[in-house]
């Protein structure tokens, strides 16, 4: 719980990826063409049915890391294993949710939820299986009665629910979500955070939630990874074993919050003399 900041790498690049996890990555690095590395030597494990929050300031490389972990981009170094197999393309059992719902406006809610189900590289489904999956996912997010509404007729919160249902319909083993609630108002956001936790538990999926919101991370995560530095690394990790609902545990929540704020403070101070990170471990 209190790994010193200098111990930046929680897992060395040399340690093997873990087979039994939903996702396990070692020694990951990524650079956009012609630019310096966004992150380097990142190791991440996500266990089955676990909610991991990737926390960090904006621009620290969270979205880039998520896209690489989902294999939307190829890492410049390192290896990703998904369900034990080395990942070389986006996996059919991994699903994505973005900050914007990004629904397809020409499809109704049911059409959007089923959108990912009938592509050549997705497992083939019968008509009835498909309809069942779509209906099931829509009711899971509380929109069973809105299947035939179009995106232009949905509120921001409802649209993001449809986006969540679109991901769930693919029965993911791992849900990648990039600041999925940060465009929503505070009340809707709190609802969606609860919904996400409930869905992850009920649908037996794991989730990697990228966020820059400390409170969101504390309320939602089983584990919090703090990302920072240039190039970005995972600099700290907290296992969050606060009982849910966490809103009812103000003392524990406040303590963790302070701990995270301290870590962020140390990270800022640290970045002034960043070159000594490599030396001490």
């Amino acid at each position: 719980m209190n790994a010193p900041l200098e111990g930046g790498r929680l897992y060395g690049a040399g340690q093997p990826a873990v087979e039994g996890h939903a996702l396990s990555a070692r020694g990951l690095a990524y650079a956009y063409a012609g630019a310096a590395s966004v992150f380097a030597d990142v190791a991440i494990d996500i266990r089955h049915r676990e909610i991991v929050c990737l926390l960090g300031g904006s621009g620290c490389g969270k979205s880039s890391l998520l896209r690489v972990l989902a294999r939307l981009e190829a890492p410049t170094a390192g290896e990703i294993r998904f369900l034990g197999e080395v990942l070389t393309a986006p996996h059919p059992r991994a699903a994505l949710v973005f900050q914007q719902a990004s629904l397809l406006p020409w499809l109704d809610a049911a059409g959007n939820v089923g959108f990912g189900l009938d592509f050549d590289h997705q497992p083939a489904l019968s008509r009835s299986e498909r309809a069942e999956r779509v209906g099931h996912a829509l009711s899971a997010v509380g929109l069973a009665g809105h299947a035939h509404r179009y995106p232009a007729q949905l509120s921001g919160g409802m649209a993001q629910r449809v986006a969540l249902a679109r991901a769930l319909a693919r029965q993911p083993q791992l849900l990648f979500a990039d600041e999925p609630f940060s465009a929503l108002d505070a009340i809707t956001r709190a609802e969606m955070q609860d919904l996400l936790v409930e869905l992850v538990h009920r649908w037996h999926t794991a989730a990697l939630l990228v966020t820059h919101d400390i409170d969101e991370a504390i309320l939602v995560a089983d584990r919090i990874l703090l990302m920072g530095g240039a190039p970005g690394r995972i600099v700290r990790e907290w296992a969050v074993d606060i009982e849910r609902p966490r809103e009812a545990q103000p003392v524990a929540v406040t303590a963790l919050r302070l701990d995270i704020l301290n870590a962020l403070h140390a990270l800022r101070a640290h970045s002034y003399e960043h070159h000594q990170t490599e030396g001490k471990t």
Partner: protein
Amino acid sequence: MLRLILPLAGLAAALLLWAAGAAWLTQRMPVAADFAPLPSADALWQLVGGGDLWPHVWLSLKRVLVGLALAIAIGVPLGVLTGLSKRFAQGTTPLFQFLRMVSPLSWMPLAVMVLGVGDAPVYFLLAFAAVWPILLNTASGVAQLDPNWLLLARSLSATRRETVFRVVLPGITEHILTGVRLAIGIIWIVLVPAEMLGVSAGLGYFILDTRDRLAYSELMAAILLVGALGYALDYLARTAHARWLHR
């Protein structure tokens, strides 16, 4: 309520101005009495009820459809290419802007020389006039595609064909329809003068014919009909646009 009254008030005002103008003109030359609203309305009634006008209307509408189809068939692929390839866009933008600014009717003599008299040069002129709004709107549609849609397609390991047919084309349909709507307006405007040259049927021809027959109330009736049909076409295009967006 006001949404119904104001347009009607505008039309009524125009009607009054028309009547006043015709009356003033009639004082100077009596033959202009035929231009007035009442004789024109009467002529329109006769024409719509009779069989002489409709072949011209159908022929004009057919030309609109063929011209529009050609413009879509050429404009959409070129627009997609322009939107996807920076190089293609850089290579073609000055040329397209140049061609766009040449009134399509200027090509008429050349079109008749190359394509002969008849429908072919009219199709060419209509398509040439209509291709630009479709091309430019398609290109801007491609440029404005939500990058997350493409990311989503990639996360589904979509093939190239799936990406084009399930994301890109439906994603730019709104823009294509906007282009088509503008194109219909342009085609309808270009159609009448294009039909005044080298063809022997169609609304443009009909207007010239009424002039030659000194049937001035029929001339006014034809103008009213051209306006009404154009309004109807635009309404159809607007409705298609709104239905696609489910607004």
